[in-house]
């Protein structure tokens, strides 16, 4: 038993420490929150580059006008658990808030109470639409308007009209508020035109939690570089990322490295769970691309694999029930370097009741012309045009499967991708699976350790009368001595 306790105590610090209150649970007395556990922007990157970061109230926290006293730099403001402050009492319209008014987004303190030190980054690929004295707007390719407030204007590293990639540096978190400084934090909110009825500030909290969990799980080591001959990228390595609800990713035994993950296929326009293997190649070349299957965990007859390679994307519909252990997708050209990946999605169009399984274990690249063997001057085929799938049961994407997403497309007049996914993956984006701990990865067993625990806490008091107090609070905060 002592050994078991020791095991618990030796979990990675971040995994053990990160806690968050549930969505909608505000500081008592600060209004009535919205208990909404929907992830409105799946696959987004946490908007501050490095952990830790602390989502909590500026006005009702220490140093805030309505807080318990103290100063903004008090340790309690820089500790877990996170607390939602979407819908915190404000005077102005917020239709999705129970009170009809409230705070539009989430306030996030960076790792330390240091001004102009911590980097804010792009949450999704998209276009910078405007830059003000303390605001930067980013319209993502998936159609969400991300708003960043209080970055230091001198540090803003993007320009109006610039296209950015997920993870790109945007600016430094600061107390900028034009001529009247505020506390050191990033106000972050999300706007979408919903149901063709008008724009809504959608809840941010769960999207931030998921993206923060991904950030915390990211290993320190970089994604492995594949040598010229190719290699295997396994789900246990730093190049693998699993997205979507952790509870619906399951662990299994077998495959590469002895363990694998799987989930059930379902019917949906967009994926609920999806996995990505980042590919970083030492040199350019054509490769046979194959995916590892283990029959017990691979039964979907139409799994969608998308391969990003050499600046383009190729889709394959794969019958995973065919004999393995490797199923070849095709022969594709890859560039040297990163921004290349393979993804698999769970929205195959097969009803969940059929219990068809999608496996996420390993992928393999094998150089078409082995390294060191002259190719006898044979002209290589044109890049990926008309390359026939090599195995039966593998077909380029057909019309029978829903596109993962139809995004709003990028800016700059580029036509939108007809099948844009919420996450494109970028160089330097070294996420890891949203699973916390393999623990006992028994056959078919659900991963057992949740990524975060909920505190027992107080439910926020019913909507307090919104007022100008928050504005006065900010006025008071600026007068507080900086720590």
């Amino acid at each position, binding site marked *: 038993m002592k050994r078991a306790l020791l095991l618990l105590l030796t979990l990675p610090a971040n995994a053990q420490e990160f806690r968050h209150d549930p969505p909608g649970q505000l500081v008592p007395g600060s209004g009535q929150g919205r208990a909404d556990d*929907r992830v*409105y922007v799946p696959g987004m990157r946490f908007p501050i580059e490095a952990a830790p970061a602390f989502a909590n109230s500026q006005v009702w926290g220490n140093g805030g006008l309505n807080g318990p006293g103290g100063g903004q730099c008090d340790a309690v403001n820089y500790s877990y658990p996170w607390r939602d402050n979407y819908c915190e009492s404000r005077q102005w319209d917020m239709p999705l808030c129970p009170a009809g008014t409230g705070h539009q987004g989430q306030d996030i303190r960076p790792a330390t109470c240091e001004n102009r030190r911590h980097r804010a980054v792009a949450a999704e690929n998209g276009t910078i639409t405007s830059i003000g004295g303390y605001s930067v707007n980013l319209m993502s390719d998936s159609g969400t308007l991300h708003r960043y407030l209080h970055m230091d204007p001198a540090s803003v590293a993007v320009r109006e009209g610039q296209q950015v990639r997920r993870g790109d540096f945007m600016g430094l978190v600061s107390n900028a508020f034009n001529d009247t400084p505020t506390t050191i934090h990033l106000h972050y909110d999300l706007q979408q035109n919903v149901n063709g009825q008008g724009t809504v500030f959608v809840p941010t909290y769960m999207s931030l939690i998921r993206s923060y969990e991904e950030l915390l799980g990211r290993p320190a080591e970089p994604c492995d570089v594949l040598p010229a001959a190719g290699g295997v990228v396994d789900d246990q390595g730093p190049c693998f990322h699993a997205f979507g609800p952790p509870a619906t990713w399951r662990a299994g035994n077998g495959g590469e490295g002895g363990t694998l993950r799987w989930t*059930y296929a379902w019917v949906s326009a967009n994926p*609920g769970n999806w996995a990505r293997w980042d590919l970083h190649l030492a040199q350019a070349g054509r490769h046979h691309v194959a995916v590892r299957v283990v029959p017990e965990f691979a039964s979907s007859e139409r799994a969608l694999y998308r391969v990003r390679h050499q600046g383009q994307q190729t889709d394959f519909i794969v019958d995973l029930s065919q004999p393995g252990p490797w199923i070849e997708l095709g022969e594709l050209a890859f560039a040297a370097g990163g921004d290349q990946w393979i993804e698999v999605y769970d929205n195959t169009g097969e009803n969940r009741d059929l219990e068809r399984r999608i496996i996420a274990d390993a992928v393999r690249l094998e150089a078409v012309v082995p390294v060191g063997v002259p190719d006898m001057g044979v002209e290589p085929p044109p890049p990926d045009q008309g390359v026939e799938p090599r195995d039966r049961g593998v077909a380029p994407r057909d019309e029978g499967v829903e596109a993962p997403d139809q995004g709003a497309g990028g800016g700059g007049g580029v036509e939108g991708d007809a099948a844009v996914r919420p996450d494109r993956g970028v160089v330097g984006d070294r996420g890891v699976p949203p699973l916390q701990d393999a623990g006992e990865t028994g056959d078919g067993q659900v991963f057992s350790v949740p990524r975060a625990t909920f505190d027992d806490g107080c439910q926020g008091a019913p909507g307090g009368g919104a007022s100008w107090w928050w504005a006065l609070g*900010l006025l008071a905060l600026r007068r507080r001595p900086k720590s």
Partner: protein
Amino acid sequence: MKKLALLALVGSAAAAPPNAVEEVALKAREAAAVVVPVQIDWPAAEAARAADGGAILPESLQKQADALRLPVLLPASLAGSARLVAGPTWYAATLPTDGAQVVLHAFGHTHVRPELLAEQKAAGYGSGEPRVSRVHALLQVAFERFGLAFTLDVECASPETDPRCSDPAWALGLVDDLVVVGGRP
């Protein structure tokens, strides 16, 4: 100590795997919404442009506006200073003015979220009435025209003292001042 360890283990014990119904619900909560283009009311937009007479824009700006596949609206009083950034289904116009910056975003795409429709209806969405919000002294008016959704943000150099960032009257006046200056089906 043994009791503590046992409690810890119980706390971290494997949760029961979700059943099929639970699984679909979990996945649905984290799946991206479908995004589709809005239905643009081009006849109404063109009629409004003819009636209003548009606005006089610098040549390069006019060309840029005319090339967009969305009705391009700008406040007539500030239109000449606008800077446009656009994507296939949206545009943004930054309109600097003395001591303040106005930003207009137009959304020609929409996220399909049926579960929110009732709340939107209850809050008066679709009624044509503008909605005013304010965060960190950024005042925003949200409204719809010709099938597009718009937001008009006002950011003030002196956010705590400039009435344009506390009283929505000026921002609402800009919304009333909007004219169709470009765009094509």
